[in-house]
């Protein structure tokens, strides 16, 4: 047989949620494969496999990407943040807390992807309008359709974030 892409191997190194790690990968591996198979992380999930649903959203060098389409090879030398990296111990990230308080999920499968995107949204725009929210998050799909509650959660997180900023 001809040389299959999977037989091309290399070792990549990157920071995962702040810690330096390395992984032996094959050329065809995507970042979601490495996160779930090599590091047994559960937060990013492959659903549509085409970058259309947002369930696999993680940050690479502070930029949100669909890890089902992102070749692991390109993660070499980057800093990767997943939902596992945004809370510390029992202390949840404010966006996570807002999702609980607004009841912004049902089955929860899409939730980590939404939370990662909402954090990006609020970094770029601390006071988003409903229209801003809808547009920014339209690449994340929720089949349980907890959309009204997700909008509530974003508004709640944004107002808490602004309050915290005022106090500080």
């Amino acid at each position, binding site marked *: *047989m001809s040389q*299959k892409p*999977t037989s091309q191997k290399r070792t990549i190194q990157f920071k995962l949620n702040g810690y330096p790690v390395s992984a032996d990968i*094959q050329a*065809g*591996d995507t970042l979601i*494969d490495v996160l*779930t*198979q090599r590091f*047994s*992380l*559960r*937060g*990013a*999930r492959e*659903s*549509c*496999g*085409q970058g*259309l*649903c947002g*369930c696999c959203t993680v940050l690479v060098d502070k930029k949100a990407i669909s890890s089902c389409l992102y070749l692991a090879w390109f993660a070499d030398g980057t800093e990767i943040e*997943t*939902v*596992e990296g945004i*809370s510390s111990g029992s202390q*949840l990230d404010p966006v*996570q*807390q807002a*999702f*609980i*308080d607004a*009841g912004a*999920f*049902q*089955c*929860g*499968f*899409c*939730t*980590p992807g939404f*939370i990662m995107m909402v954090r990006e949204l609020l970094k770029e725009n601390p006071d988003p309008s409903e229209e801003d*929210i*809808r*547009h920014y*998050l*339209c*690449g*994340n*799909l*929720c*089949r*349980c*359709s*907890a*959309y*009204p*509650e*997700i*909008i509530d959660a974003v508004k709640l997180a944004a107002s808490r974030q602004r309050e915290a900023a005022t106090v500080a």
Partner: protein
Amino acid sequence: METSIAAGNIGNSIARLEARDKVTGRAEYTHHLRLPNMLYGKIFRSTVPHGLIKHIDVEAARAVPGVFRVVTIEDIRTVIPHPYYGPAFHDQPVLADGKVRFAGEPVAVVLAEDRRVAEEAMALITAEYEPLPAVYDENDAMSSKVFVHDELKPAATFPDLKHLKGRAGTNVALDYKLRHGDVDKGFEEADHIFEHTFQAQQCMHTPMEPFVTVADVVDGRATLHTASQGPSFVRIEIARLLGWPENRVRVRAPFLGGGFGGKLYIKLEALTTALSLLVQRPVKISLTMEEQFFMITRHACTFTIKSGVTSQGKVIARKCRVVWNGGAYADIGPRVTQKAGLTSAGPYDIDNVWVDSYAVYTNRPPAGALRGFGAPQTAWAYECHTDMIAKAMGIDPIAFRRLNLLRNGRPHPSGTLLTDAALDQVIDRLAARLDWDRPLDRGTGRIRRGRGIAIGFKGITAPTTSVAVVNFFADGSCNLYIGTVDMGQGSDTVMAQIAAEVLNIDATSIQVIHSDTDVTPYDMGTLGSRSTFHMGTAVRLAAEDANRKIAEFGRALGLPDGHNIPLPELFKRKYGMQAGNIIGTGSFIPNYEKPDPETGKSTKVTPFWGVGGAGAEVEVDTETGHFTIKKLVNVADIGVAINPKMATMQLSGAGIMQMGFTITENMVFNDGQLTNGSLADYKIPSLLDMPEEYINEYTESRQKDGPFGAKGAGEATSIALSPAIGNAIADAIGVHIPDTPITPEKVYRAWCRAQGLPEVEE
């Protein structure tokens, strides 16, 4: 009987018990599971919709380094001699058996330790088929000489299908009949006759966690970890396939990333079990999003409805002919045919009713249950029909519905009385929310506006059983063991609230043990809005049983009734240390009378009635057909809401999902080949599709025999949403679109026809 203790758990919108696990990504789904020594299976699928398999060439796949084994039906047969499964009919082979019946049917499987290797090797398999003529349309299938199955093979689990055994030369898997009064006489006496035909399209559940099963069969024990809504049924069916007792099959289901009726009965479990048995290693199969379209879908359906109406606007006769496109394998389609057939004349008080409802096989992917068991497709027809009659008669659509409404205490055509069904209030609330008495500016130019309402109801699968166990530990803490699967509807939380209310403790202190058939007792399935009513009652009974046992415990220790010794102290006194258990059990099966097969008559055909309605306001751009849903209102009767927040979210979520089935979602086929099996081309609603104004509410009502007055909420807003939008569009443009999805193209063409404008070619 209800307990008088009020612990404040009912009507309390506590957060989901598992909320933290879901926002941190820690929640357990089968999706993540990997077992030591596990193989991944990748399915090779049929490329023809109907054909005899002449040859399958697996040599190239087998030669790929890392491939453990390539499996076809011949291999499966060495471990399971009769490898056919299904809930209603044993018609579906574990892998294609000499013949394929739809494009996308599993034909072979590659097993490898590396998922990518399995994928690459699968792509090297080739198969030769001798194509057979195929039948795709449900109406063609009724009379076609092309037969999808040589003979019908009903499962023994449904005694009422026994008479179909061995029937040949037909695609009709089941015909359901409902006969009430004299429909011909009714038509004769009527002043006006209306007849219309409507169609609903095939669509798909699209759970974000695609179908996945891990099977581990070794030493006469089968353990399945599976994203299933019905672990008890999976156990029964796997035990039957293997010829083993049920106690040698263990089925676990953690959280599900959505289900919506898709993950019911038996899906990947038969294949993964057979593979694991064959290779004596754990096997995992995870479908891709595309493959989900080949697993299970919602029935396409053609519904012809004819009504006889008096000059006063009273409907006195109605005849319904509903044909359900079940695809290549029956799955639970026969039940959909019966259940939706039961209510297909609508929630109206009609003296003469005739219903024929047919499940038919075609060469399309199989269809089964999807949030409503067919009720949404039938409501699409009877509620558009209702508006068309009202308009023709010059009667306001709401007044017309009130005039004909089936009210509590009146018999449904089956003979079962309508009880605890707040249809009246649903209409009242819709009218209020839509401000119906206010005249609507419908516009006269390019932009036209319209509004519409629709109501509907459904029967609930019956008779079905739920069993629950409450287990107190010696420190006074307790676990609740239930087979209800939490797929997002919030059953863990609601069941904990019901138990906590009876036990007079805090719901969040209860640990709910997820479906594991080695541990959790039987439950028929998480389906058809049944869990809150059935399992909720079983949980209430189990908690009451535990309370009784706690009281007996005290008496045995010589304590007076009404003592206030805490439970941990009781355990210590009895056992001399922190030890022991108090176990309460509860089992529930509602009353039911099997309907007469010729007339559908029964005095108790459903445990309760599911009731919902919707209203919509739309704006149509008549130059393009593009329309906007300005306002969408859902009103449901769910009895007492145990957890109002989560109940409302069920109504809201089901409404948005149904909106997808109404305006965008459609499985498009070309010669039996699915052309849009991806989220790129099959559009489920996103945040951008949300109506501008979206309202969800439930009526002040009570299901008298439900736990604390509750009944199911999962499908109530699925039922009538499509016709509400359809009626609003018709109100805006003057004509009804007879088939879903309602696309801008269809609206534009309908407008052109209605206006006598030249039609644009397809």
